[in-house]
Every structure is written in structure tokens, then in C-alpha cells.
């Protein structure tokens, strides 16, 4: 088994178009859940969201490229470009065949889907554009990333609602660790601010009327967000041999299913998920210093996640720092794991924990140190990032600082 280095990061979301822009705002605790650019007519029950405010497609893609790319795929490609550029990798020869692309997306090309439906059902034009199918397919981002960089190994997309990206990242991690791939570009993207999808979220009544306030007593639901987070995962020896800067390490991945309810979370499912991730990492709970929580800001999620964390981490839960960066970029659904993975790697790297923004008052049912409103300096060896999806499908990824001592189970022999 190989250690898995992270050698590239890419991010686009409400916080900015690059990793460095986004990190500045994460570190400052600046929430970018702002009034919607289109409040709906009649207005949606919610008024704010985490749109990728600074993203102008024409700044990054030619008109010809945009013909083929729905917004969610644009995000995926943009984040992958940043991550691959940082890694300095070129996918040539044998490396191209030994490299993978694994992405996550919950709904795929929703904008293109709705555009087709608008013509068909509203305008009564029974002609839907011939590019609709390749724009809508959930793997459009993965396919474009593969072709843009000439990555010829495994390529696929995982769709497990809000866990999509963590499942993608975890699968890619296991491929690199197990030797099936030398490099993997992994993460996910989502574009949610399409009217049909917003109306569906509206009627579920889980979106906060103003901003999400994860772990606060007065939390009223989640805030939707959009964007992408991508990571370049690389066989450790391969990265070291070429002198690449190693930004972090993925050390463990766990998955579980609640086998319970289609939308209500359980405590057991997330608990098992975190336990499997720790076991996969070969780590004791006390080695983890930070959790980037699923922390959606719904009453039930934050309460059950707290209970699950307390159960898994036992006495060390009292020393854990736990924050939900969704309070700043929103819940990006299928992109959540990717975006929050990048935030978690940056947390370890900068020894600074981004806060839970919009926090007002503590909830006894969420009695963890949620790093309210202000980032906190902390030297942390390892961190976990959680995603718990509708449908009860859970995925947790464990990250470590690259300068920690090599773990025993990865020593030769």
C-alpha cells in the first residue's frame, strides 16, 4: 500500500474563484451567503444562497467550450485546472494510463435539463437541443477533465446526493493507495441555482429563510451553495521522486448506510462511518484534532452529528475543534465533500481552523467546540471531513499533515 499525497488543490465557490481567494475568506470567517441574484417570482421562501458570485464563465472558457459545458461541469473543470496546475503534473506516456478522474455530482447538468423542459413544456416546442444529453450527464465534468488533460485511466462519477464528492474522493484515495492508479484528480461539483431545483428545495422546507447557522440554537435550516472542489492525489513516492510539494495526505476513508429513512439522519450510520474512517486510517480518535462537520444547519442534522461525534470520539470529543464551513459557502450538495476537503487540507497546512460563521447562541444538544465566528490557531496532526447524504449514505475522509511521522502500517516489510 502506498501513502497518498495531495499535490494539487482547486476551488471555486461563493468564497471566490481560486483556493487563495477562498482561504482568505474562510480564515476571516466571512460568510458569502448573500441575497439571491434571482429571488424568484413569486419569491422563494428563502432569500439567500452561496452563489459563485465572482464566477464569469466567459473569463475561463471560450464560447465554443461553453456550448458543451453546463455550469456544474464548468465548475469541475475550473477547479481541476487549478489543482492540476499546482501539482505541476503532465499526463504523458505511462502516467496518462495510470491516472484517474473520479468526480461527484448529485444532480448533474440541471440548467441544461431545465432549459430543455422550458422549450418543451412552456414554449410547446417539441425540439430539445442535441447537446442536452452530453451537457446533462453527471459525468460531463469528469469526461471533460479527462480529455483536457489527457488522463486515460479510470474515469467515473459518483452520485450519492450530499456524499457524492466524499465517495468520489475516497474511491480515488483507495485506488491510489492500492496501486490501481498513480495519480487521481478527484472531488466534485454542483450547480444548484436552477429554478426547478430551487422550487423543489423550497417545498421540502429545509432551507433557512435567511442564512444557515450550523450548531446554533436558533438554526432554521441549510443554505444552498454551488461550486467545485478538486484535489490531485498522488502516489507518495511518485510525488517525492519528482520533487513535488506535498500539501497534505489522505490517510483514511469510511462509508456506511443508515438503512433507516430517506431523509431523516440516524446516529448509528454516521457513527459507523467515522469509525470505519478512523480504522482505515489506523488512527486513534485522539489523534484527530479537527472535524469539518457535515453541519448543514438543520435541527436534526447538527444534533445527530454531535451525538455521533461524541459517541465515536468519547473523552477526546471535548478537545476536538468542529466547524461547518457551510456557514460561509453554503451547502453545495454533491460538491460538499470536494470543497470541504480543500478547506480541511488548508486548515492543517495553515494551522488555522476556519470558524462556524453566523453563530448566535449555543444549543445544549450541539455541545461541541464549534469554533464560533472566529478562526482559531491550532496545530493539528489529522482532521476528518464528514458528509451524510439524503438516503442515509455516509462518507468520511481523514486527512493528515504531510510532515507527521510515517505511520507504522505503511513501513516496508
Amino acid at each position, binding site marked *: 500500500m502506498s501513502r497518498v499525497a495531495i499535490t494539487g488543490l482547486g476551488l471555486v465557490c461563493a468564497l471566490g474563484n481560486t483556493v487563495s481567494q477562498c482561504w482568505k475568506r474562510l480564515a476571516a470567517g466571512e460568510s458569502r451567503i448573500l441575497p439571491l441574484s434571482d429571488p424568484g417570482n413569486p419569491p422563494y421562501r428563502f432569500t439567500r444562497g452561496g452563489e459563485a458570485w465572482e464566477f464569469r464563465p466567459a473569463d475561463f472558457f471560450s464560447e465554443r467550450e461553453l456550448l458543451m459545458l453546463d455550469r456544474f461541469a464548468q465548475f469541475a473543470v475550473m477547479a481541476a485546472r487549478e489543482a492540476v496546475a499546482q501539482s505541476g503534473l503532465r499526463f504523458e506516456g505511462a502516467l496518462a494510463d495510470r491516472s484517474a478522474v473520479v468526480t461527484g455530482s448529485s444532480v448533474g447538468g440541471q440548467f441544461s435539463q431545465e432549459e430543455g423542459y422550458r422549450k418543451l413544456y412552456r414554449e410547446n416546442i417539441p425540439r430539445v437541443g442535441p447537446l442536452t444529453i452530453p451537457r446533462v450527464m453527471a459525468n460531463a465534468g469528469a469526461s471533460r477533465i479527462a480529455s483536457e488533460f489527457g488522463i486515460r485511466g479510470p474515469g467515473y462519477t459518483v452520485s450519492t446526493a450530499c456524499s457524492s464528492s466524499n465517495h468520489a474522493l475516497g474511491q480515488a484515495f483507495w485506488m491510489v493507495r492500492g496501486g490501481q492508479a498513480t495519480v487521481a484528480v478527484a472531488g466534485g461539483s454542483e450547480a444548484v441555482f436552477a429554478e426547478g431545483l430551487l422550487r423543489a428545495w423550497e*417545498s421540502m422546507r429545509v432551507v433557512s*429563510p435567511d442564512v444557515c447557522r450550523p450548531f446554533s440554537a436558533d438554526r432554521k435550516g441549510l443554505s444552498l451553495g454551488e461550486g467545485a472542489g478538486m484535489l490531485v492525489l498522488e502516489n507518495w513516492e511518485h510525488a517525492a521522486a519528482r520533487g513535488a510539494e506535498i500539501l497534505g495526505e489522505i490517510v483514511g476513508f469510511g462509508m456506511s448506510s443508515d438503512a433507516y429513512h430517506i431523509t*431523516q439522519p440516524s446516529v448509528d450510520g454516521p457513527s459507523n462511518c467515522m469509525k470505519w474512517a478512523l480504522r482505515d486510517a489506523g488512527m486513534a480518535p485522539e489523534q484527530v484534532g479537527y472535524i469539518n462537520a457535515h453541519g448543514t444547519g438543520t435541527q436534526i442534522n447538527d444534533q445527530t452529528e454531535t451525538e455521533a461525534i461524541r459517541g465515536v470520539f468519547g473523552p477526546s470529543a471535548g478537545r476536538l475543534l468542529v466547524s461547518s464551513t457551510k456557514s460561509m459557502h453554503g451547502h453545495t450538495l454533491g460538491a460538499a465533500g470536494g470543497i470541504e476537503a480543500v478547506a480541511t487540507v488548508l486548515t492543517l497546512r495553515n494551522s488555522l481552523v476556519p470558524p462556524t460563521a453566523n453563530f448566535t447562541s449555543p444549543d445544549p444538544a450541539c455541545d461541541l467546540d464549534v469554533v464560533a465566528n472566529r478562526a482559531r490557531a491550532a496545530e493539528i496532526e489529522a482532521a476528518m471531513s464528514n458528509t451524510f447524504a439524503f438516503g442515509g449514505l455516509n462518507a468520511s475522509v481523514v486527512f493528515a499533515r504531510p510532515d507527521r511521522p510515517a505511520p507504522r502500517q505503511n513501513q516496508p516489510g
Partner: protein
Amino acid sequence: MSDECDVNELGRRVIRVIAQTQRIPPDQISLDSTFEELKIDSLDGINIVFALESEFGIAIPDDGVQNMRSVRETVAGVERLLRQKNVAAPPGAA
């Protein structure tokens, strides 16, 4: 007063909506049934609220949803909203 404000008729309509939404026979639902007895969980509740909004042309606020835990509470909530609607726009005023 319209029929909508007659509790018996209103009760029957609410029960019909719940029965249709939950795919259960209306005769298994009474005014005294709780959502728990009817095995209606929070997601089912949201689905019922959505159907009631369509049936009665009302908008049920989020805190109203949390107070609907039985058929009787639901009927009372709908009745209150219908009364507000009729005050805002008396019958015939449209």
C-alpha cells in the same frame, strides 16, 4: 360563510387529502388520529402540507407545520389560515 369554514366539511376535506397523500383508506383516519398513530413522519408531513396548500389555496408557514401533529391540529391550522385569507380577500372580492 363558505363551506370551507364548516369544521365537519373542512375536516372531511383534510382527511381526504391526508388519505390520498398517504395512500391510506379515509375511514382509517379520524379527527382524533395523531400523525404518530398514522405512521406519518416529518417528510410525510411536509408532503401533506404541500397537498393542503394546493387543495385550499393557502400558504402554510414553517412554524405552522411544526404544530401539526394530529388531524385535529391540522384542521384547526387550515381553518385559521382560511379565515385569514377570507379577511384579506373576502369571497367575491376577487
